Structure formats: C-alpha cells, structure tokens
C-alpha cells in the first residue's frame, strides 16, 4: 500500500451543466495537504456537484481538476480511487451487509490487504461504532449508519478525503467527535474537503471556507474573512451574528432579510 501521503487538488475554471442548466461555473480553487476546507452555501448552490466532480463521480463539462498538477481525467480510475475517498450526501446500502463488511468496501481500491480486519475495527473505533460491527446496516438508525459510512471513508489510505454533509443526522457528541477526527486527519497531512451546513462547526474546525452561491464561487478564505454579516446576509438572506467565544465560533442566525 505504498501511495502518496500528500495530495494537492485544484479546480481550474470548473464548469458543469445538467440538462442544459449550468450547475457550476468557472470555479477555481485549490485544496492543500494539512488543510481542512469547508464548502458552504445555500441549498442548490452546487456544493454536492463540486464534491462529486472532485471525487470523480461526475465528469465536469468544462475546465478540469488537477491532482498534484496532473489532469484528473488522465488518471486511471483505479489509481484515482486510491488518491481520493468520497462519502456522498445520501448513501443507501442496497443489501443488509454487516457494518464491518460495509466498512471493508472502503478498502476495495487496495485489493485485499492482509491487515484488513484490524483496519476495519480501527476505523469503526474512530467513529465510536465498534459495538455495531456485526449488526446489519439496515438495522441501524440514521446517525449510526452515517457513522459506519464515515468509517468506510476513513478506512482507506487516500490522501484526499471528501465528505458531503458528514455531520447531518449526527447527534452533537458525534458531530464534535467527527469534526475532531477530520481535524486530526488534516493535521496528519491529509487534504480534507467537507460540505457543511453548520457554519459554527465550519468556522471552528476548518482552515478555509469556500462559499458557493448559484454554482459560482462567491468567496473563499478563512472563516473570519468569509462569515461577515454582510456577505452571509447577501448569500443566505438572513441577518446574523458571528463571534468567537474562547476560541469557539458561535454563529447565530437572527432573522430573515
């Protein structure tokens, strides 16, 4: 399993059309190792499409994605799967696999590594899910299933981790645990990209924020740069208050504008 430890991913004038409608247009940005990036924006802003393009699940209609300077379309699918791991917004398992078997699917790009079982149980431990290792995934609650799916994302060795709304459906303990996990992954050198709706979590844990609106990149930078009442008010149509309390970000939406 000798693979790249660090990976820089860039979008160059990325565009995507669906049924003749532009979903993404001219998005240029870079995701670096050691960085945890949050992609935020209102519903329909193109967050999921951007993440799917980045993960290779969607093919951009214009522009391109580069992985360490190489055009991602030129990277063979099997190799690209070892470079990036992706958790879509809604992943519905078709069969009632056991949790451990579902997590093991995350190792498919690496064949059958000898330490498969240890890896799977370590990944389940990371998300506090070792107690349902043998339970069929169809018998888990929404949040429990989400944690097992996150273990599937974390079980491999891909240097680029992409997750679409990983905190949705999780209780506050597991939201916090999850963000700390992603923070640790980034600190260990991985490139982590998350679509998030919770702006407080985004501000608190992420190094960088991309704000999307209507398929366009509206702003990017640190949370302080992006989460200004004026910009958030303009993009989301809400008045808000945003402040730091002992290093913890607190974002309070006040009223509709």
């Amino acid at each position: 399993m000798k693979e790249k430890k660090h990976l820089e991913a860039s979008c160059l004038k990325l565009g995507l059309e669906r049924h003749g409608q532009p979903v993404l247009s001219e998005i240029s940005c870079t995701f670096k190792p050691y960085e945890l990036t949050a992609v935020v924006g209102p519903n329909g802003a193109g967050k999921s499409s951007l993440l799917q393009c980045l993960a290779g699940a969607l093919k951009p209609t214009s522009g391109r994605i580069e992985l360490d300077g190489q055009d991602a379309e030129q990277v063979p699918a099997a190799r690209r799967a070892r470079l990036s791991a992706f958790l879509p917004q809604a992943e519905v398992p078709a069969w009632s696999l056991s949790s451990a078997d579902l997590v093991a699917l995350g190792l498919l790009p690496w064949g059958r590594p000898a330490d498969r079982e240890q890896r799977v149980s370590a990944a389940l431990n990371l998300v506090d899910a070792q107690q349902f290792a043998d339970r069929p995934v169809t018998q888990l609650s929404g949040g429990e299933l989400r944690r097992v799916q996150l273990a599937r994302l974390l079980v491999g060795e891909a240097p680029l981790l992409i997750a679409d709304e990983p905190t949705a459906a999780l209780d506050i303990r597991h939201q916090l645990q999850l963000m700390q996990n992603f923070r640790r992954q980034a600190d260990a050198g991985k490139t982590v990209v998350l679509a998030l709706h919770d702006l407080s979590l985004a501000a608190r844990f992420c190094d960088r924020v991309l704000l999307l609106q209507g398929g366009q990149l509206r702003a990017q930078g640190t949370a302080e740069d992006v989460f200004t009442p004026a910009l958030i008010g303009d993009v989301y149509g809400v008045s808000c208050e945003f402040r730091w309390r002992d290093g913890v970000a607190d974002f309070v939406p006040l009223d509709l504008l």
Partner: protein
Amino acid sequence: MLTQNKSALVLFALALPLALIAALASGPVSIDLGAALGDGWRSENSDAVILWQLRLPRALLAILVGAALGMGGAAMQGMLRNPLAEPALLGVSSGAALAAILMLYYGFSLPGFWGLAWQSGWLLPALAIVGAFCAVACVWLLAGRGASASRLVLAGVAINAFLSALMALALNYAPSMFAMQEIVFWLLGSLANRGWDQLLLALPFVLIGAVLLFCARNYLRALSLGEASAASLGFRGRRYPLLVLAGIASAVGAAVAVAGTIGFVGLVVPHLVRPLVRQDPGLLLWASALAGALLLLLADIVVINFVGAQELRIGAVTAFIGAPFFFWLIVSARRGQLL
C-alpha cells in the same frame, strides 16, 4: 452465524454429486449404473448408451443451465441494486425465445446445409444465443449513455414488451397446431431430449459469462453503496455495466437457448442464498450458481420420475420446490431474522 452459513454452502456442494448420482439412476428403464459406468462411453451396450448418451448429458445440462440462471440472477440483482430484478428483465430470455420461435417456424423448410444444421439440433440454440445478445444490445442502446439502473430496467421492460408482442403474433399465426405446441413447450422450458450437442454448445458461453462476471465482482460489491460511491471507489464509466450485461447475456442467453425459458431460478435462488454469503454480491454469484444448479437438477429428477401422460414442465417444478423455501424466508423475515 458465519460457520453455520459456511456449512450450509458446503452441504449444497456435497448434495450436488449425490443429486447427480440420483439423476443418473432415474429414468423409465432401470439400468445397472456401475456396469454402465465401467463399460465406458464408447460401449454399445444399451445400458451404457442410456447412461452416457442420454442421462449424463441431460444431468450435466441441468447443472449448467441452473448455474447460469442462478449466477445471472445474482448479477442482475447486484447491478440494479434491486432484489426484484431477474435476467429476463433485460430481454435476454425473450430475445432468445423469439429467435427460437422463428426457427421452430421455418426450420423445417430450410434448404441444404441449414436444413441439415437444423436437424442436427444446434442451429436453434445457436440462433437463440444470437437473439439474446441482440435483445440486450437493443436494451443497452435504448437506455443510452451513462444510463442509470432505473433507465436500464425501463428500456428492458420496453424491449421485453415488444418482443412478447412479436411472440404472441407468432403464436397467432402459427402454421399448424404442431408448431404451436412446439413453441409453447419451448417457452415453458425443458431438458428432455437434450444431448451432448446442446451441452457443448452452451458450455463455452456460460463459461465466458462466468469469467466476465468474475471480472465484475468488485464492481457489484462497490455498487452496494450506490453509483456515486462505486465511481469514487474506481468503478467509473461504461466498462463495468457493459461487462455485467455481456456476462448475463452470454450465460443466461446460452441457458435459455438450450433449455427454453425456465423461470423462478434467476429471481429466487439469489434470495435463498444471500444470507449464506453475508449478503456479499460478489460471493453471491458463485453461491447462486451452486444453488441454482442443485435446484434445477433436483427439479429434473422430479420431472424424470414423474409418471404421467405428459412430461412435467421443469419451470413449474422449480417453482414447486423453490417456493416453499421462499415462503419460509418471507415468514422468517417477518420475525425480523433475515432479509
């Protein structure tokens, strides 16, 4: 749980040779099995001829066809992520059936070489395989680029409906009662009067199908997470769905071509064995092949031993044997144990 599941599969594997012996021993005349085996397949003793030229190829064909149908069903359900899918959905069976019907119509009047080919019994299955491939190709083309599973099913339903209409039309205008009866019997499926020719014709196609599906096993596994996740795990593009479709067309097309349309196996066998392989869509291919082979062989033993004016239709017998298992499965699912 796991060991229990494994022993069930081992039991299936052990039951297969026993069923094979039972199949060789069954028939309207009783033969001395040991002596016939000892005589070898070249012998002209009547017992040896019955064993080597009639019973053995028929039993092996039951195994081959059952395995192909079970495997095809498992692949189909895996690819469409749907436990209600069966190979017939792709038009494999109706494509093969329509080609076979056309042959049953015009086969007798073919001149020269083709007439001889018809009489030797391999022209009909060969054309039925071609028919199966054509039907699947139509479904693939109709569904179009990057088709989702649901679009594939819709295209399959449309092609199926069209082919069924053509078959009904063919029955309508059947030249004689005899031709009509031939067609109906063929549609119901049978292993009677099949020999080495049919077996050797179907074998390479089933093997090719198995190899193609083997290459797609990890795709089927990844698909249990959905199409976007499978793509991110490295299974992108048209290559993998095409691999599965070609595998199903080859294996199931060949099975239908030599045995007619035998329902139930492709739909229900994967359900029966899915709990035994921890729901793994990759292993399910081989477990379903094993269980399908066993089910069809047992059904054929019933058919052979049934004494009556008319031969039983094997499709009906598979359902009679398999349905009670299915009832049991549904009842235990109601208690929340399986499925």
